[in-house]
């Protein structure tokens, strides 16, 4: 088969762990990264908890120059650059390449919106008739492709450099787009992933829609409850995930460590018809996306060992499980193992698909199932379709060959990608 695509590097900035080592440990232990934030309470948010990665000033300086940090106020770009550079280094690629750039490596790094706090600063200044005093930093931090612009400059990337945006399916879509570009022979390597800003100016709109939980302000770590009968809305998160995708031949030539193979995937939309709306999915399209991803991967649905769902902890979790069940033609004890990474990190919005894909790939590489927390009381609708032993609540070593990862987003958009354990 021509142009097989593998993952040779990972980077992650998650609310419960920054860097692959910390994140992997948090994943195995089921450590929650959700905390109470006084700022949200002071601003009268219903949901006063969230997930924010912890980045020290010292860590920032390892990735950014003092000049880059002057007037810097874009948490998404911060997270994206750290995850992206980490994935690059993890793949064993050179970071001291200041003279040359690499025409065979590109970048697709998605986001929902960029630098909202920077934008807020700018709007205040502008309304004060001080547009001339904005300086040079507003555009690059608030343009959607800001994260891609920063990263490609740091690494010297000369192939396609762009940013995709498809709401909460952004990260998974970026992986599929990068995979397709390598598959088409247009690039040897693609750094892919996504990031999302943290804080009230990103989360406020969701709070206003009443889709976030307001019942766990005193118990933040129990707040994110995918698949639970007592789920009461998602907990907003933030961060970034990054994958270095590489043509298998190139990876083997470099003697790179291979985490997993990307078998294939699919992206589609439900057209906001047949039950689909701006905010709800058309079930037929979700099922079609999963089925097509499996066909495109050249496998059969019974070969899927585990799924990493979108599973946000809203009332739609049951419908999602039903869609998986119908698409795969599997239920009960025959249903694949289920991971809901959001139980520990919340819903990292545009970054979700990338961070959760990193989680799925770590589980393949290290052969384990991560605990799903806060779902001791599984929803009866879900139990009708999935045997509870398929939803692990504690760490368990497990032979896994193929994991399907799906993400769904506002606008009725869907993305599903399949990762396979790589054995040289």
């Amino acid at each position: 088969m021509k142009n097989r695509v593998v993952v040779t590097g990972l980077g992650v900035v998650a609310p419960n762990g920054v860097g692959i080592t910390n994140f992997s440990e948090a994943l195995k232990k089921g450590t929650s990264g959700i905390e109470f934030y006084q700022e949200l309470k002071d601003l009268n948010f219903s949901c006063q908890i969230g997930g924010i990665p912890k980045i020290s000033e010292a860590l920032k300086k390892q990735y950014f120059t003092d000049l880059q940090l002057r007037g810097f106020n874009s948490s998404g770009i911060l997270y994206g650059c750290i995850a992206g550079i980490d994935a690059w280094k993890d793949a064993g690629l050179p970071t001291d390449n200041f003279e040359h750039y690499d025409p065979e490596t590109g970048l697709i790094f998605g986001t929902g919106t960029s630098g909202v706090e920077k934008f807020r600063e700018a709007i205040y200044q502008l309304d004060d008739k001080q547009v001339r005093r904005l300086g040079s930093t507003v555009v690059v931090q608030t343009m959607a492709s800001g994260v891609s612009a920063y990263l490609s400059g740091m690494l010297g990337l000369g192939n396609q450099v762009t940013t995709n945006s498809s709401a909460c399916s952004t990260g998974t879509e970026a992986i599929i787009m990068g995979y397709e570009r390598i598959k088409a022979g247009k690039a040897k390597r693609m750094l892919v992933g996504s990031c999302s800003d943290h804080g009230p100016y990103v989360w406020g709109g969701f709070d206003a829609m009443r889709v976030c939980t307001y019942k766990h302000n005193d118990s933040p770590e129990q707040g994110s409850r995918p698949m639970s009968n007592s789920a009461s809305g998602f907990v907003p998160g933030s961060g970034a995930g990054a994958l270095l995708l590489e043509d298998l031949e190139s990876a083997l030539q470099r003697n790179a460590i291979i985490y997993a193979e990307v078998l294939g995937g699919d992206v589609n939309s439900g057209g906001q018809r047949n039950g689909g709306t701006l905010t709800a999915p058309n079930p037929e399209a979700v099922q079609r996306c999963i089925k097509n991803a499996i066909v495109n991967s050249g496998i059969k649905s019974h070969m899927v060992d585990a799924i990493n769902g979108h599973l946000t902890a809203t009332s739609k979790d049951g419908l999602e499980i039903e869609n998986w069940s119908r698409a795969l033609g599997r239920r009960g004890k025959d249903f694949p193992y289920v991971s809901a990474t959001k139980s520990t990190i919340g819903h990292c919005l545009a970054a979700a698909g990338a961070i959760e894909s990193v989680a799925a790939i770590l589980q393949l590489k290290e052969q384990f199932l991560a605990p799903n927390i806060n779902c001791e009381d599984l929803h009866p609708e879900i139990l009708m379709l999935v045997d509870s032993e398929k939803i692990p609540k504690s760490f368990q070593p497990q032979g896994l060959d193929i994991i399907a990862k799906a993400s769904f987003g506002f606008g009725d958009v869907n993305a599903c990608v399949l990762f396979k354990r790589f054995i040289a």
Partner: protein
Amino acid sequence: MEKTVLIEKLKVIIEPYIQDEDAFKNLTETTDFVKDLKINSANLVDIILDIEDAFDIRLENEDMEQMLNVKAAIEIVQSKQNSK
């Protein structure tokens, strides 16, 4: 303000933006911000804002266009200070 004092004050302002340490060490009146100090041209507007704050003056678009080297910067700052 004396020219030497002014240059010292200017050096503090531009130091964070320079990309060529040697040229900065040997800075003279004829030193060009972009060609010699390798300052990213986008950062010139940030330097202008920092100069405005440091000297409590306002620089117009025409001033910015001319402010390409140390000599021009000194002249413009001095003339603004004198006309205050």
